[in-house]
């Protein structure tokens, strides 16, 4: 299974996949994509590493404990609903504001933050599955 060919392809493709996943996450609000799709793409790249190099490599590539990433994602998602309380709105009510970025002003809102949480959860969970299944 651990063919050189696969490993070589991986080296090329994985950075691309990771960038793509972030791209999908960020553009998700306006075009197909979003936290799920982005997270799954990222997770797929880790699955590739697992198949091509083995579990240890995947753990190294992951750097963090996947469960912590999932936990952080969940906490981010849950917390993204809280700002609404401060302006007397119901839980999870979206709040939008303009954020100046190097690429020009960008609209940022709690739904985006929520989506990032989803993204992290999906990555963390899927990698955790992979890790545990390959026991």
């Amino acid at each position, binding site marked *: 299974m651990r063919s050189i060919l696969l490993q070589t392809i991986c080296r090329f493709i994985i950075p691309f996949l990771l960038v793509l996943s972030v791209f*999908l996450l960020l553009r*998700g*609000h*306006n*075009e*197909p*994509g*979003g*936290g*799920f*799709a982005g997270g*799954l*793409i990222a*997770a*797929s790249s880790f*699955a590739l590493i*697992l*198949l091509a190099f083995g579990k240890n490599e995947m753990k190294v590539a992951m750097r963090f404990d*996947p*469960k912590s990433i*999932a*936990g952080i*994602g*969940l906490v981010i*998602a*849950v917390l993204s*609903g809280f700002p609404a309380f401060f302006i007397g709105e119901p839980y*999870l009510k*979206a709040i*939008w504001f303009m954020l100046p970025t190097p690429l020009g002003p960008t*609209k940022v*809102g709690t*739904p*985006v933050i*929520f*989506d990032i*949480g*989803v993204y992290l*959860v*999906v990555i*963390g*969970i*899927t990698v*955790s*599955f*992979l890790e*545990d*299944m*390959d*026991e």
Partner: protein
Amino acid sequence: MVTIEIFLIAGLILAALAQPIGRRLGSSFSLLATLVPLSAFVWGITSLQTLPIISSRPWVPSLGLDFSLRLDHLGLLFWLLISGIGTLIFIYAGAYMKPKELPRLLSILSVFMVAMLGIASAANAITLFLFWEITSITSFLLIGFKGEYENSRKSAVQALAVTGIGGLILLAGLILLGTENQTFEFAQWTSASPIAITLVAIGCMTKSAQFPFHFWLPNAMAAPTPVSAYLHSATMVKAGIFLLAKLSPLFGPQPALAWIGAITLVWASVLSLGERDLKRILAWSTVGALGLMVMLIGHGTKEAAEAVAYTILAHALYKGALFMTAGSIDHAMGTRDALQLGNLRRHIPTLALPAILASLSLAGIPIFAGFIKKELALAAFEPATGIPFLIAIIISAISGIIVAMTLTHRIFFQSQPEEAELHHAPTPGLWIPPLILAVLGLLVGAFCLPIGEHFIQYVAATIHGSEVKNHIALWHGFKLPLFLSIGAIVTGFILNPFWPRIRTSLENLPKTVTLEGSFRALNQLTNQTSVGITMFYERRSVRDHMILNFGAFLVILGVVAAQNPMTLALPNGPGILFHEVVLLLFAALAAIVVIFIPNRLGAVAVLGIVGVAMAITYVTFSAPDLALTQILIDVLTVVLFVLIFAKLPRFKDILTKNQKLTNATISIVFGSAMTLLMLAVLSAPQLPSINHYFAETSYTLGQGLNVVNVIIVDYRALDTMGEITVLCLAALGVHTLVRLKVKSGGQKQ
């Protein structure tokens, strides 16, 4: 008036205090405890002139339930019996029980007494039922008082089973009556449907040990004697009589009931001759007396009502005394086997007097209460129409003579080949209470007139529902009842010498004939059936259960579909294009192929193809987000499959042909049902969907162009939150399963 409640509460307080205080005071505690029943008794006598005593307070208003009490003459009769005999029983128990056991016994007995007083004074069906069930439970606890013996436990559960099912049937009857009359107050009941009457009557029959539910009572003799004397002769078993009597104005004469009573009377009178255990002899005799009462209530005439009223009183007096005496004999001699007892007048002379006095009453010898009871009963039936009932009474009278002779002449004055020796001489507490009752039996008989005029007459009026004249007298003249009485007495004395032979032949009756055997067989059958059904159901694989689940769902669906015929039409959606046909066919083919692939990885590969086909379907019908997610999930699923399959065995084809056929049938029917359900939905246009709102506001309010994504992270973000929580749980679960070491059942290390 709150007086009634005060006594009820006092009884409960006594029950609560029995354990802590009783343990310190020892057997003298029982004397202290008698204060409660004694005061209730005294109060009962003094309040004779102020009847009826009424009290009512709301309890559960929304159910229309009040806690209402009403003490009338019938109730007062019971009240006096319960409290009066209760007083004596408390004293008796103090002498009879071991000091260690006494507090617990008195505690349960007090609860029981409260419940009986409650029954006597209840004015509301639910209130009555409340107390009724408490008596069943306390009876269970008391019969099983010595629960370490298997016999006690069996008898206890038997009694509970019979009175328990009876209680529920009674409840059913009472509820029907309550629903029918729109109230649970007895006083306002005006109509009674036959079914309700039947249910109530069955309930009363179980409690009062009527044929064919009678067998629990002799077995209840496993209880300590104070309990037998109190519950199973004087009071609790009469609760059914009480309720029948209370409701008899509503129910009217019930010939069926009279017949049941007669059968019980004869059957029990005969079987009382087949026992050798004194308590069991008395228990059968009690069943007979209860049968007599039911017979009279069922008969329903004024004379019968009077006879019932008097019988309740007379029976309680002599039977209570006899039970206590039997218990004292047991206590003194270490046995209550009639065949091993003899010459008791030498060993325990103090017990001779109560035994003789009470037995004379039981035998129906003139001037004793038992005599008048019998006369009244005989007078209640017309010689022309009531011959079977008269015969029943005569038979019981004959049997009563023999029993009385056994209890006195045989054991006190004759000697036996194997005689038991004296263990301890009875203390006063063991012979004074029965003596008091026995003497009362004499007094009630000898001075019957005032009691009848001042009390029994009114009780009879309550039972019959209209005024009843007093017939109670020692001398009625040379009429039929007297001749019958004399005839019975003479026959009894003639038959008495043959008792041992009669006993042996009756003892050898097959168990099934005595119905107790049938009950045991029924009980066993129930147990076996339940175990059988349950094991049959439980010891099945998950596959069998799923077949049941799918099958049941399909059956329900089919039944409802048959009752509500569908009108199916072709959906008026877009026409199909060629490449879509190919795509769908391809997906269907792949799905079917998955079933038949024997190779694990091959199956997964084809499964992946199904997923891809799904993704293409999504993209064809304008769902790019779905397609993207589907394809990614598909890939990851395949990866997981590959990883997990490394640790699992290869596919095996272990289904038998029949099993395959079952699978195929169920799955095809299920699949078709689903298609039809979808068609049912699709053949009508969808009501205006709420999705137009998302289309209109997704950008203006939701700040996003991708409506699906806006729904996921904004409109329905809570769903998504739940969903990622589920994901986290799944990861936690997988992690847990991986890490936990499987232990082989049983003990944890």
